[in-house]
């Protein structure tokens, strides 16, 4: 919808490399800064500023948020507009240089066509620079402009410049960055920024502005079509599918396929207010009337017939971890790719990438600002491309289901296994048939609470009562499953998530077999329990919160765990070293100080009511 063609730039550099000054100078030099802001930059000074009175402090033109202005560093991504001499619009995403903000750097680079990297000539190439180059490469940036700054302080020494170029060019090539320009500049004094400098006679290349003016936006209009469907537009006698084209071009009359659904249809019309265009290409928002009007919903992807996308449910992907809490194996997150949302589990961490050295390290976890390769499994097959093929349909976010925070940005490398290779077998004898023979419905009673709350005692008592009533039951006790099925797991939050996942899957099989399954498991994290609940149908999952005060549990201490924790031997004991997140919508809340008899009776009543 933009009126001028866009090029997107990500600007990266360390805190003191002079990045704000360089961008400020570019903006001011292209008339992209209003006069009143220029005036402000003449009269305002931050403490420690060395800019002469009355001169413009260019760095003041780009900072925005109060707190960082006080700290003198950029802490978030800021977007600035600049009109290029070629009348195209340059959007500069100003990414932070500060160490802990890899995440923001990845955000800024995710849509960038070209990267501008600042290197402080006085300090030379530092690990930061390699980090930025690595992240840009990872996020799909294929053109880098390296501005070697502060050469004015070194008398514009050519050997310093050459030394830096000789270090960075091979690094960029190794990372697969196709085009690299290296320019000697002085952000402070303006050399080679807008105009050729007389002080670098040994450099005969273009100025920074000339390079930016020639840079090209990444377009994917030539590729096969990918149109993620955002919404269905309805009007009397009309139904159209609407979305923004990720790659390719769509023309009236094209035959399209709905990825993975064996449905095809022809584009009868590209519908637009006051117009009826013949074609539309990558980046454009369209509404298509299809013939026949096949059943399509939000999250479907329309593709070319001869270059479609095969849905899969296991992927190898790179993650940039953005969450404060580290990645938990086996925990169910929401995977969001454009309009598509599906529950997903990280099944393995393959390695962590050291973004400074480029080396791969063995890792079991990813924490804030880590980058790593993982295997990810989705609950249903989804049409994701590789990131290399398509940024928009080959990328995703992972969302924590409890806090709603975005915890990771992911880039698909490849589908691990075509989902069509494993097809769900349809059983002749199904769960309803089994239920009829048993004469009672199946389901799971999930008891959660602190260690020593009384879960096992209550579950045992309830099972005896149900058994006596002729109900087919099974009890999955937390301690017992750790002797076998889960003996490889410990008690970290990640292992607890996997413990819950496996127990929930086993319970699901048993419910399918027609049993009433009692689960007695601390299962301290709400998100893990919610993921377990989703394996079951409505009414099949009865969450029972055994609510016993911590001091009562500690006084009972049937397994001596609280005593060991007090002695410092059990760092992960729930309620002591780890938090317990009580259920917010439990079907049943039992007071752990009541008698086991009364509690068991309440459970039996709840089961029979289902």
């Amino acid at each position: 919808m933009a009126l001028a063609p866009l090029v997107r730039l990500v600007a990266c550099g360390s805190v003191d490399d002079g990045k704000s000054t360089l961008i400020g100078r570019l903006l001011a030099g292209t008339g992209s800064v209003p006069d009143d802001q220029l005036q402000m930059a003449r009269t305002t000074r931050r403490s420690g500023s060395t800019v002469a009175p009355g001169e413009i402090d260019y760095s003041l033109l780009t900072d925005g948020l109060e707190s960082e202005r006080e700290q003198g560093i950029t802490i978030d991504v800021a977007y600035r507009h600049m009109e290029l001499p070629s009348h195209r619009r340059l959007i500069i995403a100003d990414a932070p240089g500060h160490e802990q903000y890899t995440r923001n750097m990845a955000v800024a680079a995710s849509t960038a066509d070209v990267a501008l990297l600042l290197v402080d000539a006085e300090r030379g190439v530092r690990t930061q620079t390699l980090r930025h180059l690595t992240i840009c490469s990872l996020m799909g940036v294929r053109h880098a402009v390296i501005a070697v700054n502060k050469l004015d302080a070194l008398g514009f020494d050519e050997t310093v410049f050459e030394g830096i170029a000789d270090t960075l060019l091979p690094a960029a090539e190794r990372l697969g960055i196709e085009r690299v320009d290296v320019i000697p500049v002085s952000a402070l004094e303006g050399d080679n920024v807008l105009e050729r400098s007389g002080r670098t006679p040994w450099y005969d290349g273009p100025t920074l502005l000339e390079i930016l003016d020639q840079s090209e936006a990444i377009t994917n209009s030539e590729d096969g079509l990918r149109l993620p469907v955002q919404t269905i537009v309805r009007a009397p006698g009309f139904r159209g599918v609407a979305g923004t084209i990720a790659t390719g071009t769509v023309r009236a009359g094209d035959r399209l396929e709905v990825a993975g659904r064996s449905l095809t249809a022809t584009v009868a019309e590209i519908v637009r207010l006051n117009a009826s265009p013949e074609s539309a290409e990558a980046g454009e928002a369209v509404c298509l009337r299809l013939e026949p009007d096949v059943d399509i919903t939000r999250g479907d992807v329309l593709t070319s017939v001869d270059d479609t996308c095969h849905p899969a449910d296991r992927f190898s992907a790179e993650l940039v971890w953005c969450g404060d809490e580290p990645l938990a194996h086996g925990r169910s997150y929401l995977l969001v790719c454009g309009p598509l949302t599906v529950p997903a589990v990280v099944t393995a961490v393959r390695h962590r990438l050291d973004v400074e050295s480029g080396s791969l390290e063995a890792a079991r976890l990813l924490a804030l600002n880590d980058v790593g390769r993982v295997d990810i499994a989705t609950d249903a097959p989804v049409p994701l491309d590789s990131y290399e093929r398509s940024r928009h349909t080959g990328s995703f976010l992972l969302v924590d289901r409890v806090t709603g925070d975005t915890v990771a940005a992911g880039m698909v490398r490849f589908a691990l296994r075509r989902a069509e290779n494993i097809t769900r077998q349809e059983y002749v004898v199904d769960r309803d048939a089994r239920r009829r023979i048993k004469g009672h419905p199946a389901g799971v009673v999930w008891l959660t609470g602190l260690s020593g709350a009384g879960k096992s005692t209550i579950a045992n008592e309830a099972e005896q009562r149900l058994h006596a009533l002729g109900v087919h039951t099974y009890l999955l006790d937390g301690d017992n499953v750790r002797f076998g099925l889960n003996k490889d797991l410990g008690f970290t939050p990640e292992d607890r998530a996997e413990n819950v996942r496996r127990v929930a899957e086993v319970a699901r099989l048993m419910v399918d077999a027609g049993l009433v399954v009692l689960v007695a498991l601390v299962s301290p994290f709400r998100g893990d329990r919610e993921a377990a609940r989703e394996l079951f149908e409505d009414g099949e999952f009865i969450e029972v919160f055994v609510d016993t005060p911590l001091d009562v549990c500690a006084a009972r201490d049937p397994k001596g765990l609280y005593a060991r924790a007090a002695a410092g031997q059990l760092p992960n004991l729930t309620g002591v070293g780890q938090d317990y997140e009580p259920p917010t919508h439990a079907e049943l809340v039992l007071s752990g100080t009541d008698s086991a008899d009364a509690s068991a009776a309440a459970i039996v009543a709840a089961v029979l009511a289902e």
Partner: protein
Amino acid sequence: MWALREAAAAFRRPVLLYSIGKDSGVLLHLARKAFYPGPIPFPVMHVDTTWKFRDMITFRDQMVSEYQLELIVATNEAAVAEGVTPFSHGSQEYTRLMKTVALREALDEYGFDAAIGGSRRDEERSRAKERIFSLRMPGHRWEPRRQRPELWRSVNSELVEGQTMRVFPLSNWTELDVWRYIRREGLPVVPLYFAAERPVVVRQGQLIVVDDERMQFEPGETSQQRLVRFRSLGCYPLSAAVASSADTLDDVIAEMESSNESERAGRLIDGEGSASMESKKVEGYF
């Protein structure tokens, strides 16, 4: 259009905040396009401080009837009853009560979980860091550090207890883009954007147009007829006009192409301390 469709499809109850200004006009037009030939699938809401220019209200009502919009007018009636005016309470407190509080209360009253607005990143420096989808915590507070990373075209639309979303589809537009779009699409705008002889009071170097008899003059002030227009519209005692003879769309655009003063320079409420827009935003101002 992408952001508008996402807002409509991913949230339970979105609303479009219509301020009557040029940006809102563009936003409204994009919303018509995004869902054409269907209707705009959400209501529009105007936060009325009761001190808007009369021309703005007339224009709003024309737009509502022409496009058959579902209009909600939100006013902080309690503050009106208490006699809050831009003259009596100072621009800062007045803006907080009549705009920020009025908006927050209306969003809560109707249970809107996503509010779409026409803010642009080029308007003001702190807005350069605003997301297109900007999360608000319970109480509509904006916490810069809790903002979600925005990558590609994937929006995390999960809202937990009390959270809401503000959506800014025009983030990447500039003021000039807005005018060029208005010209290209032939959109109507409030006549105040065009130069005309208007009664003006010069106050602290700013040109204040006297829109009705509620204007309070300071000692020595009188109004005089001046040829002026507006770049940005708000409450009349708080929106300064610029001296201009641009009375057609082409003239306005030509003036803008040669001018180099930031748009909100005429908005008196921004001037109180260089970080004041940011402080207002933290409280829930749009």
